[in-house]
């Protein structure tokens, strides 16, 4: 994108305080996740070591001491039942949450853009077939299918990658619809006709005249997909079909919460707060990007989105 076009975007984004707050949180989370080994080294803990001495086995494994057993050695306390360090598990959980949701978004956007472009720029047969496929993905009960898929894939397959693929494969329909629509409307613009008239080959036309026009809506849409994927990953792990122990994940911690919330509220509130902050930050950033990139295209995006992405995550 030429600099003169991106500058106003950045300027508008900078002026959006909510978006900047979201961006700050996102950056912080990314740093925290990337530096997880560093953070735990600083604390002197690791996410898998059991500390039987820090929990009271007689009461089911509640951490000894107030605030979930928080201490100078375990800054955010320890996990009930195992005594594993909560801070370490949270930051390693951030790795899972962020990598899965980012990866899933990349898969969704890549697949969606590819299919959408093929449908929007291809011939009528390709368009019909691909559009029907998009409709079909919309008819797929997302969460149901995700849960079921997680079951039939052999246990040896790496779970985070599987989560990325499953969420990605189930969630590309919206992007594809958006891209197809955009490609179709871009294709009908006269500057594309002008490019054809100059004798340019179709791939050159697509690259120069159509793809740049897709960047803004696709980036925006991806930014709006991301928080949904964070929620979806947490939801699947909450249901026990996401990442597997001993890998740490926020959703898993929360599913344990159904038994622990009375005995050890700290253990519930920490992953809950972190998950909430992450989703909110991504949402704010996405909304900010949307208004910054294209102040007018509001309903178009929201409608496609609300029809789709919430299904995987919300119920």
């Amino acid at each position, binding site marked *: 994108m030429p600099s003169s076009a991106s500058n106003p975007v950045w300027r508008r984004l900078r002026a959006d305080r909510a978006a900047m707050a979201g961006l700050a949180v996102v950056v912080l989370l990314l740093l925290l996740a990337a530096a997880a080994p560093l953070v735990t080294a600083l604390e002197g803990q690791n996410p898998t070591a059991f500390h039987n001495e820090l929990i009271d086995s007689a009461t089911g494994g509640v951490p000894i001491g107030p605030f979930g057993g928080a201490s100078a050695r375990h800054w955010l306390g320890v996990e009930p039942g195992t005594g594993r360090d909560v801070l370490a598990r949270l930051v390693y959980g951030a790795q899972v949450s962020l990598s899965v949701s980012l990866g899933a978004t990349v898969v969704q956007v890549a697949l969606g853009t590819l299919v959408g472009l093929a449908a929007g720029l291809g011939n009528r047969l390709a368009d019909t077939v691909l559009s029907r496929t998009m409709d079909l993905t919309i*008819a797929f009960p997302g969460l*149901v299918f995700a849960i079921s898929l997680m*079951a039939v894939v052999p246990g040896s397959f790496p779970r985070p990658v599987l989560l990325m693929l499953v969420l990605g494969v189930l969630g590309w329909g919206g992007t594809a619809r958006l891209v197809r629509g955009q490609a179709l409307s871009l294709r009908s613009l006269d500057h594309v006709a002008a490019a054809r008239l100059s004798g340019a080959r179709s791939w050159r036309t697509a690259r120069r005249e159509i793809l740049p026009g897709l960047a803004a809506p696709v980036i925006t849409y991806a930014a709006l997909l991301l928080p949904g994927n964070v929620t979806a990953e*947490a939801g699947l792990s909450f249901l026990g079909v996401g990442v597997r122990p001993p890998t740490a994940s926020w959703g898993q911690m929360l599913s344990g919460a159904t038994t622990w919330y009375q005995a050890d509220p700290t253990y519930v509130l920490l992953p*809950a707060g972190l998950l909430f902050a992450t989703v909110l930050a991504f949402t704010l950033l996405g909304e900010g990007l949307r208004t910054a990139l294209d102040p007018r295209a509001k309903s178009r995006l*929201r409608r496609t989105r609300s029809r789709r992405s919430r299904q995987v995550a919300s*119920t």
Partner: protein
Amino acid sequence: MIRFLLRRAFSTLTVMLVLSVVVYLVFYAAPHDPARLVCGKGCDGVRLAVVRHKLGTDLPLWQQYWQFLHGLLAGRDFDAGTDVTHCSAPCFGYSFQTDQPVLGMITARLPLDASLAVGAAVVWLLLGIGAGVLAALRRGGIGERALTGVTLAGMAMPVFLVGLLLMMVCCGYLQWLPFPSYVPLTQDPLAWASNLALPWLSLALVMAAAYARMTRSALLETLAEDHIRTARAYGLGERRIVLGHALRGALTPVITLLAMDLGGLLGGAQLTESVFGFDGIGRLLVESVNTIDLPVVVGITLFAGFFIVIANAVADLLYALADPRVGLQ
């Protein structure tokens, strides 16, 4: 109208058929032997073969699918030579692990999910549309900013988080409400409602956020349309303009979304059920996944898909009925 319905039915059927093929292939092509799971201890070659034959898993995949389809439309028998298990149409499959027709297992839990979905929908529509309209009419005020904040927060809260926190506060600390456990409406309406209050609220808060945002933006969009200017230019009052002209246009997409959401929820509200420990379709699915009870997994996936496909069709129908421009072609 009839042509519209016929065409919609036709395309709906096609989508369902493709859906069933995909679901069937994905699950039955996976490397699990349902017969072995059912057959259990001391299951030697002959016995295993009999069970395989009864389940139909000794046939090529396409024949299995054909039998499945046949069962769906006309019912089918699972024949093991001596004993025959009949599964009448529409046969969504037969769970040999629990020895029940899948459809029966699903419909036994449907009242719960229906109660959950419909009750929550009422709450979220009231909350969402109300808040959305207010936000659109009081633009720029503190109220609108607060509402934007609340709806954003609502959208950032997965239902299992809201439910967990609500339960923690309302049932744990304050003890306002009982720990939810489903009571059928027919048995005790009051208990039904009080036990479902929290799940409704949790689900509704999450959904209402999206509905409020959608209503608000749709209403603002409609209010900016030329025909609203016309209405003003012809001396119509604001109330009449908003309620009579703007809201109708703004709610059309909301109605569509509602149909879709309800369709999705009727196929099982996995996370909500899981948080509140309800034995609904969603939980049945999670359990069946853990026990690899494939017929149930396939049945629920299809069932949920059917609801969504039908909801899609209903949404289109509603849209066409609501918007004279779309028309029932």
